[in-house]
């Protein structure tokens, strides 16, 4: 078997993860769930829209669609048909982000090798012909139209375009209509050949499977694939400072305050978001939602934890009559004045993190996605979510001193 040694680590909630790589550079992550009759199989490629050429935006997402077309071994439509016949739960799926593209499926545990065989086939043998591209162009243009009709999607695209102006993070994952109309087999093929390599990918297997069995199946299906390239570096990020007002067909105004989040780990970001929002006793909910000054509040940590250009975002939907500028001032003031965690908040945060840890690992697909993201960002797998109240207080109260961008979406 062309593999290196296993590295076994403990994971949240007493679970474990086994990691190794094949000689071609492909990473394998396995997390067994002894009692589960099913298995989540995910292939993560460390390439997303942030790796695109500014003259051909949307190629990562377009390629994600084309990966469900034919290969040299399987005619168009066969991939879905075979996966569904195997019992793929909820069918097959994939998603593209700024930094990565992931292909996800769940099958009965006995079908693991069959699923891996299909994934390995499309990693190497994809056929990108003009006819199928043309049909898929219609589907993707329709998806683009949907996003243009969706105020939430427009808001999110505008937010990232402004925060990451002049970088590859600025353009929408779907690409521009102009570039979608100009997409060709050649552009897709170049991207595929360059980025869809074993060394730039991880296979994640979670569920009712023994690690050695998963390793044998992965080696037999992916082991013979050759490829020279390793991981691409993450796209560079640079957070702008400033503010922008965006008009859209929204029902209520939405205020997004984005703070540069360099140095904040994923787990710290999670603690901060739980302390700030997500339940009625969280800091921002208590101060603004319960007092009728906000329709809803959320706080979230956007991708690339710890790295320069990562952001921590506070989003507030404002009811009629609430002044956005006053809200912004009051949020900043609240964060600046945040000095300690009272006993009841401490208990609440403990409960929140306990429940969050369970939710991350309870279902095979959630655990697999968690592991896949950790792999993309080169982060250690946590045994537990570190619970350190003074750190949470410090990080939250220091947010206002960080570089920030304020984005306001108002009804047009």
């Amino acid at each position, binding site marked *: 078997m062309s593999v290196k040694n296993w590295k076994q680590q403990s994971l949240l909630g007493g679970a474990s993860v086994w990691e190794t790589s094949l000689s071609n550079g492909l990473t394998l992550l396995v997390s067994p769930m002894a009692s589960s009759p*099913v298995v989540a199989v995910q292939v993560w490629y460390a390439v997303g829209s942030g790796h695109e050429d500014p003259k051909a935006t949307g190629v990562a997402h377009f390629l994600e669609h084309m990966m469900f077309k034919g290969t040299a071994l399987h005619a168009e439509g066969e991939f879905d048909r075979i996966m*569904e016949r195997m019992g793929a739960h909820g*069918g097959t799926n994939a998603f593209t982000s700024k930094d990565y593209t992931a292909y996800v499926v769940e099958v009965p545990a006995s079908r693991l090798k069959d699923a891996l065989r299909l994934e390995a086939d499309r990693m190497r043998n994809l056929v990108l012909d003009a006819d199928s591209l043309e049909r898929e162009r219609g589907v993707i243009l329709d998806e683009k139209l949907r996003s243009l009709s*969706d105020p939430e999607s427009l808001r999110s695209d505008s937010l990232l375009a402004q925060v990451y102006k002049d970088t590859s993070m600025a353009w929408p994952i779907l690409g521009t209509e102009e570039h979608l109309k100009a997409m060709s087999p050649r552009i897709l093929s170049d991207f595929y050949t360059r980025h869809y390599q074993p060394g730039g990918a991880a296979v994640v297997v979670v569920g009712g499977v023994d690690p050695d069995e998963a390793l044998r199946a992965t080696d037999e299906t992916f082991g013979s694939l050759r490829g020279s390239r390793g991981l691409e570096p993450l796209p560079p990020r640079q957070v702008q400072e400033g503010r922008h007002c965006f008009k859209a067909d929204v029902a209520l105004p939405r205020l997004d305050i984005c703070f540069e989040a360099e140095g904040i780990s994923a787990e710290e970001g999670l603690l901060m978001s739980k302390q700030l929002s997500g339940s009625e*006793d969280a800091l921002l909910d208590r101060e603004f939602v319960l007092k009728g000054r906000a329709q809803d509040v959320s706080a979230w940590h956007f991708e690339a934890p710890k790295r320069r250009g990562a952001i921590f975002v506070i989003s507030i939907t404002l009811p009629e009559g609430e002044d956005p500028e006053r809200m912004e001032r009051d949020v900043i003031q609240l964060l600046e004045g945040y000095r300690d965690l009272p006993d009841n908040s401490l208990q609440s945060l403990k409960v929140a993190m306990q429940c969050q840890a369970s939710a991350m690992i309870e279902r095979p697909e959630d655990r697999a996605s968690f592991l896949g993201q950790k792999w993309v960002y080169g982060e250690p797998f946590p045994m537990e979510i570190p619970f350190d109240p003074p750190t949470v207080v410090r990080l939250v109260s220091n947010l206002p001193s960080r570089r920030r961008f304020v984005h306001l979406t108002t009804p047009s």
Partner: protein
Amino acid sequence: MSGIIIERGGGLPVAKVRWIVPSGSVQDPRASEGLTSCAWLSTTRGGRTWSRAQLASQWGGICRGLVLRAHDFDAEMRADVPLDRLTSFAKQWRAVIDDCDPPPQELELLIRDLRGDFALDFEQPESRAAALCRRVLWSGDPMGNFPDGSPASLKGLHGDVMARRRKELHGCGGLLGIAGDVPDETLAVLQQEMGVPERHPDFFSMARGIAPQGHRLGLWHDATQEQASVSLQWSTGRPEAGELMNLRLAEMLLCSEFSSVLSTEFRQRSGLTYGIHGSHRLHPGGGVFQLRFSTDGAIGPRMLGEVLGALDAFARHLGSFKITDRSGLQRVAQIPWEGQILEDCRLKALNSLPFLVATESDRVARRMEQLQFGTMGTDIEKRARLLKEATPESVVRAAQWLFERQNMAVAVVDNLAERKAGYLALEQWSVVHEDGASLCGLN
């Protein structure tokens, strides 16, 4: 413990708790739609002893993800609770119900929140199309109520009406489902404090004669839309339990999977839509079939015409291999569904059975569905046997029953300035509602 459904064995330190009360928004008068939801949600908005903020703080130390929601036929509460907090959780629920008496300003805020949520939900054209279709299909019937009310109905709700409804809801028992390694002594506390009856409630007592309005078209003009969002719904009545697997196969064949006939035709082969998806949902009184898609507005009428033709092909010509009179549907009618495709669906359905019971939460959900909707619960062997016994003839019968669209309603959200005529010309609609916004209580 017969009133509690529990599944143990996950080994996690957190239990998932779900409490459902057999009373829902179909019991709201149309002028007061949203009443059940307001009454149920007001449970956490404060009482004689505690303010809402104090309550929030207490709940925060006990559980996470506390959600209260009213649906058509039930009111639901769910939460994730660390095992060592379950006893506190039960006692807190009892104390909150006993003390519940939200001040008027909290009820005003609750209504404003629901109006805001309505507005946010209706930003999405697909959501608007689905809501309008429901309204058109169940015109004049409480099944057409929006569980969380509409801006028009929410204006008229008052505290005393909510208090009466809240008392009814808290007095009619319920069904408690728990996924987690909960010891028996804790279950006893839950049963006592939450008032879980010894017997499971009878959800079917709410089933009654429902009256869908067929062959109706609802239109919602939105000048900002470049895309047509289309929703089709019809009432199917109540299926026999033994027919559920035939229905599942017919549904998979037509529209519930990526490789189904409609998805293959309209997405993969024609590139006309990002997605077309349909599903059959059961409720205690029967079932509703829903089909939805969106497409470039310019081709919306044409695609809807083809989808209607496909439904006809399934309901009327399935098995006879006749080519329909719509040229775009020739391939649909020619698909040799009796052979390989039916076998594909059967394999898919058989192989996906383990997912129905993969986790403790899944098993609790199946058992609760069985009591609410008369499904087969966790009996995977019975499902497998029925799937294996299905024949082309039995699936044809199920398809004819499932895709009979005489009680169908269609709703379209689009910039209709130039395209309305295309939709009007498609069928002999019995009624056309041209002001979707008013019909949904937006004005």
